[in-house]
């Protein structure tokens, strides 16, 4: 087993190596991306719309496999077992069981709150009521939703508010104890108070797992992330400590974007 570390002695949880991505129509959305995701840290991806940050994020749990014609080149290595999760021989379903995702718009299933959280466990074949109860409770607590819903677990998830729905989606992703959690602009559809709740939750979650988040809100990236990567036109322009990126970026393009001269 290889354990890679960076200069701060932090463990690399996953790493993209020379990652290219092509959509079915032939457009290249990602160009030679090399980016590490550190364990128990939040890595934020920022950049203007269409820069490929969501495309990059969705490569991590092979979401692009759902649509025919999409093509990956290069590798995303998952540590500690050194698996290239983009390898054709690797089952995307197994990847998704290790790396979970929270989407831009809350997308709970039109089922009960309980069933939403339990679903990931059920697809793994877990049908023991007691285990499900425990894990659902644990996940809902982890997503700071337990106190609000513990008395109405059988209610339809649609009856929750937008912020609660998004925390439910986080609980759903959390229930299966993933190693990495992907967030695709998780607060863009939420009001400011719900946004603060989710941000606090993420800082709590990183104690247990690694987080990769796409955000178009630079303040959010500055507030919550440990590392920030700036992408532009499918390329990774700069990746560094969040502090460094926002105070003293080494590239002119990054500085222009951060200071609002562009984007």
């Amino acid at each position, binding site marked *: 087993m290889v354990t890679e570390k960076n200069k701060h002695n932090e463990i690399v949880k996953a790493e993209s190596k020379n990652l290219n991505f092509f959509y079915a129509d032939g457009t290249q959305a990602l160009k030679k991306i090399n980016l590490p995701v550190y364990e128990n840290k939040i890595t934020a991806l920022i950049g203007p719309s269409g820069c490929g940050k969501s495309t990059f994020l969705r490569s991590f749990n092979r979401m692009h496999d759902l649509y025919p014609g999409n093509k990956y080149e290069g590798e995303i290595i998952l540590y500690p*077992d050194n698996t290239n999760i983009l390898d054709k021989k690797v089952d995307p379903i197994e*990847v998704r069981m290790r790396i979970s995702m929270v989407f831009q718009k809350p997308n709970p299933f039109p089922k009960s709150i309980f069933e939403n959280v339990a679903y990931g466990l059920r697809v793994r074949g877990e049908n023991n009521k007691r285990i499900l109860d425990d894990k659902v409770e644990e996940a809902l607590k982890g997503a700071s939703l337990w106190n609000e819903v513990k008395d109405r677990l059988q209610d339809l998830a649609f009856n929750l508010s937008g912020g609660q729905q998004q925390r439910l989606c986080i609980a759903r992703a959390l229930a299966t104890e993933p190693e990495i959690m992907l967030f695709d602009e998780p607060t863009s559809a939420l009001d400011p108070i719900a946004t603060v709740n989710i941000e606090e939750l993420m800082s709590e979650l990183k104690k*247990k797992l690694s987080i990769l988040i796409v955000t178009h809100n630079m303040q959010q990236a500055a507030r919550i992330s440990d590392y920030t990567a700036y992408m532009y036109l499918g390329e990774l322009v700069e990746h560094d400590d969040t502090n460094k990126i926002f105070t003293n970026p080494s590239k002119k393009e990054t500085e222009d974007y951060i200071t609002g001269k562009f984007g």
Partner: protein
Amino acid sequence: MSEPIISARLSKDFQRNIMERFIEFALLCSAAFAVFITSAIVYVLVSEAIPFFQHVSIYEFLTDTVWTPNYSIKHYGILPLISGTLTTTFIALLVAVPLGTITAIYLSEFASHKVRETVKPILELLVGVPTVVFGYFALMLVTPLLQKIYPDLTTFNMLGPGIVMGVMIVPYIASLAEDSMRAVPMAMREGAYAMGATRFQTSVRVITPAAISGIVAAYILAISRAVGETMIVAIAAGQQPNFTFNPVESAATITSYIVSVALGDLEHGGIGYQSIFAAGLTLLVMTLLLNILGHMTRKKFAERY
């Protein structure tokens, strides 16, 4: 932090994949069944019609004006059946095109949301009325009414069933044409209203021309319906082939001929048996051409917006 998972677990789960593939294949077979039905229709009609056309030349079939395959003096001209089909269809269109178009314009441009939500279910109920009931209606109610206006009208005639068939296809035209009109972008309406046009002017001068191919497609598909309609004409138009376009006379259509033969004793493989397949093939070709034309027109419309 969960346990590190060994990469062996990441190798494909073959058993599950085989299940997934098997299910996909079963679903594909269900979908492909549609292709099987179409092929079977063509195969059955053609294979039964071939012996018929070995006996009867295509020329006679298309030009003879008498159709008596089940009489002692046999004639095999499809024209009387076609004239009956076209006449009843034409009467139906005279009723359905204006009523259907007015309903469509009204629902799309004039009616409030609430009115639309009330009227559409009524139209759907009208579509759901079985044609045998419409046939009863034509024979027992509409023809006697017409006889009060025009006393020479025979009990079996093409006018009554034609009118009833028209009422039957109004909902088809109304709903397809309304769909097309509502597909016209709002900006076009706003453009017309901004210049001071009224609702009626906007509907007639802007929306209807913009949606015209969609509306025409609705007419074509309605013609196809009328051509293939069976029970109304079988009940109320009489079942005697009659080469005429006069709506007050009785006549048989292609469909009602098939019904009249099927009601009698069918000798499997006889010329009477084969003749209904020849008639059916003619009907299939007519409706198929209309449907293709209708769908092409509709597609052309859909591509515009």
